[in-house]
């Protein structure tokens, strides 16, 4: 065990850990300001913001400090390393560095999209000098409005930390970005005719510590201090990236990745980042519908829910083998549990099937080489399976039924007439239904569809229940590796649409209100393969439902 001293406080570091001064100081909640260093990228030590005093504690107790300040990001710590982050010498260096970084910065904070979450603002406030001694006119470089389809560059705001350049070289591997010219003429740019359009391109906006790289999608939409953030999970694929949903006045404005070492790491892909637009689509179901003989009979929840209950009761009591529930892998664990327990309580013979799982191509691994082939050590993976919760829904179905009926089987049962009543929980925003499937669903005696977008399937249904998207409900997604993460409600659904969990809770006539934490505890106690959920609150990083090794007894 190595002991490192940060501002005279000892901190113990494991033998296998290889930390730099910034990480060692962070263990004691001491912030060493930094711009160019990023935990996932290589070290260049170019911004000079993390200069600290570093020394060595000798075995005889004397301390020998190095005469010059050294960059904390580039200095590994070892046993006996002494780091000083708050001496006058360090503070002077921080002030001088910030003044230098701000020399040519336009200080257009009022119109800059980064204002409010800007590294320059934060550090100027915490460590800066508050004025500039530059008397000459600032060196203003023209903006480059096309770095990529989603990225624009305000060249004059850039502090040349080269995080974006290193990201495209090391994480995406596509290396579209570079530094052109030298000295004060240095600029970030793309190679002519090769825009930064790779599937991870949006991350360069997030890792830019200043307002230089901006997302065209979010540009000028909102000032960031108006946004309220909710920690959630991206429903774009089975990787299940941890994200924050940023909304204001019930309108989602952007998704941002948040760090989760258990899930995806630091980043997210552009498909997920910009794939939330269906939340505000015109095609969203606004309210439930009950159709009788092809005409609209009611749009009132208080009428429709009892009607659903009665219709299911009638069907199950007369022909339980002919009733099936199809639960899409976009549904949360809670929703699957509520529906399965409700139907299985009515009759053991109701069959539970999993809905179609959309897969697109193959798993997409990064970094890639120049020919587009991934190397052997992927740092980020976009999964082919676009459903966020297949693992979770399957475990619920396995518990209630012993096995999972595949979608193809239930479809052929419908086509053969063996099943004539279906309760379908949708949720896939890009679901497509081909004509033969639709014809099968239209031949049913009773089709109940709970979905969020209007589709040919909702047209064919006798009862349509207006559900919600991931941003409007609470629940749990279990990703490809068995990590259960909480999806949290950040906005209200449109008009009279209700969170799916609430619909199913009311349908099952459970007492009280739908509460994901309490229901998770119940699920954890009921379903052994989801026992990890019994903690209720899954926290920021989620809990793994994969089989845990037996803890080694302490000796």
């Amino acid at each position: 065990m190595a002991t490192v001293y940060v501002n005279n406080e000892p901190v113990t570091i494991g033998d296998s850990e290889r930390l730099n001064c910034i990480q060692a100081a962070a263990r004691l909640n001491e912030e060493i300001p930094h711009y160019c260093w990023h935990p996932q990228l290589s070290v260049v030590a170019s911004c000079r913001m993390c200069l600290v005093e570093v020394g060595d504690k000798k075995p005889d107790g004397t301390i020998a400090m190095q005469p010059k300040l050294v960059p904390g990001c580039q200095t590994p710590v070892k046993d006996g390393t002494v780091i000083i982050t708050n001496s006058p010498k360090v503070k002077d260096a921080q002030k001088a560095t910030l003044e230098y970084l701000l020399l040519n910065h336009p200080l257009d904070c009022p119109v800059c999209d980064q204002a409010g979450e800007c590294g320059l603002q934060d550090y100027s406030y915490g460590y800066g000098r508050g004025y500039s001694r530059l008397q000459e006119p600032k060196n203003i470089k023209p903006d480059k409005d096309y770095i990529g389809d989603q990225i624009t560059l305000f060249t004059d705001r850039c502090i040349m930390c080269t995080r974006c350049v290193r990201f495209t070289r090391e994480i995406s591997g596509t290396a579209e970005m570079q530094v052109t010219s030298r000295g004060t003429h240095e600029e970030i740019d793309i190679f002519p005719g090769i825009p930064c359009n790779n599937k991870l391109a949006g991350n360069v906006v997030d890792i830019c510590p200043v307002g230089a790289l901006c997302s065209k999608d979010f540009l000028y939409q909102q000032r960031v201090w108006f946004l309220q953030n909710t920690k959630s999970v991206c429903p774009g694929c089975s990787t299940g990236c941890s994200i924050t949903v940023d909304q204001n006045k019930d309108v989602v404005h952007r998704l941002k990745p948040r760090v989760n070492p258990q899930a995806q790491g630091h980043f997210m892909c552009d498909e997920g980042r910009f794939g939330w637009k269906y939340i505000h689509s015109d095609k969203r179901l606004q309210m439930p519908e009950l159709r009788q003989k092809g005409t609209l009979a009611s749009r009132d929840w208080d009428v429709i829910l009892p009607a659903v209950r009665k219709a299911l009761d009638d069907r199950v009591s007369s022909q339980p083998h002919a009733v099936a529930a199809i639960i899409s892998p976009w549904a949360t664990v809670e929703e699957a549990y509520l529906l399965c327990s409700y139907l299985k309580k009515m009759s053991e013979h109701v069959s539970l099937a999993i809905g179609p799982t959309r897969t697109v191509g193959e798993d997409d691994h990064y970094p890639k080489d120049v020919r587009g082939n991934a190397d052997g050590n992927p740092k980020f993976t976009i999964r082919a399976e676009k459903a966020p919760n297949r693992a979770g829904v399957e475990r619920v179905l396995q518990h209630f039924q012993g096995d999972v009926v595949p979608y193809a089987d239930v479809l052929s049962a419908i086509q053969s007439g063996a099943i004539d009543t279906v309760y379908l929980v949708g949720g896939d925003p890009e679901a497509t239904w081909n004509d033969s499937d639709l014809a099968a669903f239209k031949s049913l005696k009773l089709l109940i569809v709970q979905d969020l977008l209007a589709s040919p399937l909702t047209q064919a249904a006798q009862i349509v229940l207006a559900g919600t998207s991931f941003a409007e409900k609470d629940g749990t997604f279990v990703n490809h590796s068995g990590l259960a993460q909480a999806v949290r409600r950040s906005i209200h659904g449109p008009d009279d649409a209700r969170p799916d969990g609430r619909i199913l809770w009311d349908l099952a006539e459970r007492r009280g209100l739908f509460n994901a934490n309490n229901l998770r505890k119940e699920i954890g106690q009921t379903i052994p393969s989801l026992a990890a959920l019994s903690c209720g609150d899954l926290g920021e990083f989620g809990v793994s439902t994969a089989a845990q090794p037996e803890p080694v007894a302490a000796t």
Partner: protein
Amino acid sequence: MPIKKEDVTWVEEPTIGFWEASFLPAIVEGLKTTIGHVVNYKSVTEQYPEQKPNLPLHYRGLHRLNKDEQGRVRCVACFMCSTACPANCIDIVAQDAPPDWPDRDKFPKTFVIDELRCIYCGMCEEACPCDAIELTHIYDHTGFTRDDMRFDKIKLLEVFEQTKNDPKDPVRTHRGKLGVASDFADLPTLAPATSVAGNDRAAQAPTSGVIKK
């Protein structure tokens, strides 16, 4: 807790004399005031709306959106006013500036102030970094519906046209595109171009308790 005896002061009712008991001096005193008003008559009635009041220079009335020399709206859609607004009555939608406006990145696509919700505190004017929003001396703006009182960009620019030549509503400053922050080149330097002096206010630690280390 009971009141202590030494804290209690007993007051005797004053005895009334003969003249006081007759009430005559009090009647005379009252009549003096009444007759004084009849003799020295001075009207305090405001003859509104025939005569408009003479408002002080710092009066805060209806907002206006200023135009620059080229007739463009001066606002750069920075949302500082709507951030400062305690009544949340300013709603802005920003848009990219046209390419022939090199001096700014964005401008307001819509700019709506709910004049019924506004409390006329003037904080928007104070927050504006480019002197785009100002409060005028207009106080008698009315409407038939609530919607009439939601002043949009066209209306607010119209208020500017109406009031720009009024001596009471001068366009107050001409600082520049983004105010002082963008005009560092024109401002005197705040410190010598050598190392920081020991008594330099800005070189010292920020106010204690404000910044978490």
